[in-house]
């Protein structure tokens, strides 16, 4: 051929495959994105999960309901309390176990503390993904550290707490717990404001997160999005309001809802939820009655044959436990509806067609926990 067109020789637009993960700073665990890229722009995206699969749901079928509680700690390892609570509520409904009032209040306090700790981690890592070298993350860790100290004080563990029991909670908090909690609740609003002033009006952060990773309300509902991601998209859906469990119907709080459905809205929804959680803890502390923290249940609890779907509003959204009992001490089927996995399925809609930095920020805003995805 005498002349070759430039387009034929042009290899600049040849797409290539980039493996993001399983070891990558912004995949938040062992999770892999197989990305087809054209320059800096993502053309296609595969999410490859399963690196942390521990076969929890199958293992659970060999254990009693109480023995299964530690598994839920390790599913979503940043929200152990909420996971404990979800399983216990489901089993209690299946077996018809009554919960003392004090236990319900304790559950609310610890679930909300867990929400604050988890949101601190989520927002901190999101800003780290946007490039602020760990500073906001470490500021948020300051409060998370105090919450974990409270957990340790109460049940001896910081992450894998294994605190809730079927019919109550494992321990009543020690006397020194309450002043420490009061101190934390008193200083939290100011700390949250300080953190917000550090990040939320930063021009660079706004430029990086506004109108990035937008999900419309309809898409969010169709994609079964839950939690702060769903509320960020403008849908006012919170299980604590929609079908109150424990004593949430006695608490006064508001549900924050985003306006645009972008990364920034999800960030702001989480910030506002930590404020609301602080308010809930304050009310629970004022209302908590005395009495037992636990009802006695048989060692090998045998719920009647049947099935139940119990759900709670975890930090990442609706966390469901689908249990089938055949009348034996072990569940016949034990299924976890993990918020991280379902939220992650929307990443494709957000990330295809945008550049790599936007995709990283969008992934960070979904707040996935790989233990929750793989189980």
């Amino acid at each position: 051929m005498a002349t070759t067109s430039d387009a034929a020789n042009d290899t600049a637009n040849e797409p290539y495959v980039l493996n993001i993960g399983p070891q990558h700073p912004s995949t938040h665990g062992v999770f892999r994105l197989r990305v087809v890229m054209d320059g800096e722009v993502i053309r296609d995206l595969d999410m490859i999960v399963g690196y942390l699969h521990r076969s929890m749901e199958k293992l659970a079928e060999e254990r009693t309901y109480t023995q299964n509680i530690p598994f839920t700690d390790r599913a979503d390892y940043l929200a152990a309390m909420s996971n404990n609570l979800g399983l216990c509520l489901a089993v209690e409904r299946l077996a018809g176990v009554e919960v003392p009032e004090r236990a319900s209040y304790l559950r609310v306090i610890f679930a909300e503390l867990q929400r604050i700790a988890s949101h601190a981690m989520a927002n901190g890592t999101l800003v780290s993904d946007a490039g602020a070298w760990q500073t906001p993350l470490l500021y948020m860790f300051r409060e998370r550290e105090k919450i974990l100290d409270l957990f340790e004080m109460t049940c001896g563990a910081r992450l894998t707490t294994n605190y809730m029991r079927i019919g109550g909670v494992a321990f009543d908090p020690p006397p020194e717990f309450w002043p420490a909690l009061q101190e934390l609740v008193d200083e939290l609003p100011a700390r949250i404001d300080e953190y917000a002033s550090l990040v939320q009006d930063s021009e660079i952060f706004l430029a990086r997160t506004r109108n990035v990773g937008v999900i419309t309300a309809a898409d969010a509902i169709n994609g079964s999005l839950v939690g702060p991601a769903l509320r960020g998209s403008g849908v006012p859906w919170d299980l604590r309001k929609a079908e109150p469990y424990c004593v949430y119907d006695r608490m006064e709080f508001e549900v924050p809802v985003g306006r645009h459905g972008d990364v920034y809205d999800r960030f702001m929804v989480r910030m506002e939820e930590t404020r609301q959680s602080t308010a809930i803890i304050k009310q629970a502390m004022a209302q908590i009655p005395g009495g037992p923290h636990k009802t006695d249940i048989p060692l090998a609890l045998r719920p009647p044959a049947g099935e139940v779907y119990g759900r709670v509003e975890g930090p990442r959204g609706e966390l469901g436990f689908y249990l089938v009992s055949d009348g034996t001490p072990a569940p016949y089927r034990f299924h976890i509806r993990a918020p991280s996995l379902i939220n992650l399925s929307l990443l494709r809609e957000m990330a295809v067609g945008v550049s790599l930095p936007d995709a990283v920020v969008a992934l960070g805003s979904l707040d996935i926990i790989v233990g929750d995805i793989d189980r």
Partner: protein
Amino acid sequence: MSRAALPPATPMARQILDHRSLLQRARTLPGEARVALALLGIMTVAALAAVGYLVIAGTLDGRWYDIRDLGNGTSHLVYWMERQGWHPAIPYLTTGLLGGLGILSLVGGWLVIGSWVERRLLAKFQIRQGPNRNGPFGLLQPIADALKLIQKEALIPIGADRLLYYLPPVLIFIPAMLGWAPVPWAARMSYVDMNVGVVYAIAISSLGVLAVFLAGWSSNNHYALLGAMRTVAMMVSYEIPISMTLLSVVVLTGSLQLSQIVAWQQQYHVWLIIVLPLAAFTFLFASTAEINRTPNDIGEAESEIVAGFHTEYSGMKAGLFLAVELGNAILVGAMMATFFLGGYTLFGLETWIPGYLILATKIGAVYFVFVWLRGTLPRFRLDQLMGFAWKFLIPLAIVQLLVVAVEALVIEQSGLPGVATVSGAILVNALLTFFGVRAWANAIGYRPEAGASTPILTTAVGGLRAAARLQAVP
């Protein structure tokens, strides 16, 4: 909590519990040792005071042992060699060697201290402790780091171009060292006080990108290649605003020679950052892009492309890249200090304090700003960064250059006193900075992002219809 009652569980915990500060350790010294230490301190202060008195009294002035000016010692050596009637190449080579060794040891010292300072400062920004295990205040941490890096296995990725893979960590050092040549450390004290110093500085600063691109290309890794491409794109864009701003400096001061630029600032008793605030900001911002530092560290954005062009480098090769990055930050600090912060001068104080100490202090100040930015700001996206250079910095730099050309003419040829003309220039440039930036931002359609939306608070939950109801209410 009753955790303190328990014995420390790990060696690390034991170390932390047993750790005592220098002051605490000094308090437990025996009495004689404390007296001896106090005497030593008093004698040191007295000696310093005596030397200071001699310096101020002028007794030591102009001698080779004058501690204020290391350059004097060298020149005395050269005169001595010339008096001996040796071949002129010998003093020339000797001074070259001495100066080179001086710069090498100085930059090396900066690297060691700088890496400690950066980690320690960042830790303070991030409410952490920072390195405090090795030596007092963790001062030996850089040495421990270097030893660890040297011990590490040198890995070469499969499919890497071996020669090109080995070269960049060495190559990238060359411009980082050459860049120091024209920097005036004191009056008559620079390695080469060339008359085209500014052109030389710009030329040398664009050399580093070659090594970066080699590293990215030869690693056989997409992350490395992406990082290299980003760095090259950024360098090409940001060379222009840097050159433009330095051009306005050159036009105003009327010289390409760095010592002359400092002399101009000395003559009018004003720093160029006050005369040309816009140019100073442009230079600082563009420099962060050139040397890959936050908020423009997109060439090695950790959360996106792992470590950018040096992803595949391990051990001391990675260490060299990191060292050069730090060295470049210090070099940019020196340039910033020379061009905009008065160089080695400090409003007359340079006759009392050695010029190189003043310059080092200014470099430290600029470096502190870099660390501060790193501890505070998120990162721009590549397109935002390029857009900022092409749509914002370059047009403004051109306008600044045109304005400065007129001002330089007035200062040079109007015959008015320098105070009046330079003050006028400061006023005009301040107005240009304040209103010009706003006007241009409006012209290109930029709206500040601040005042961003806060979430709607509601107690009514529901699905899509509830969402629509909520959004309808303003």
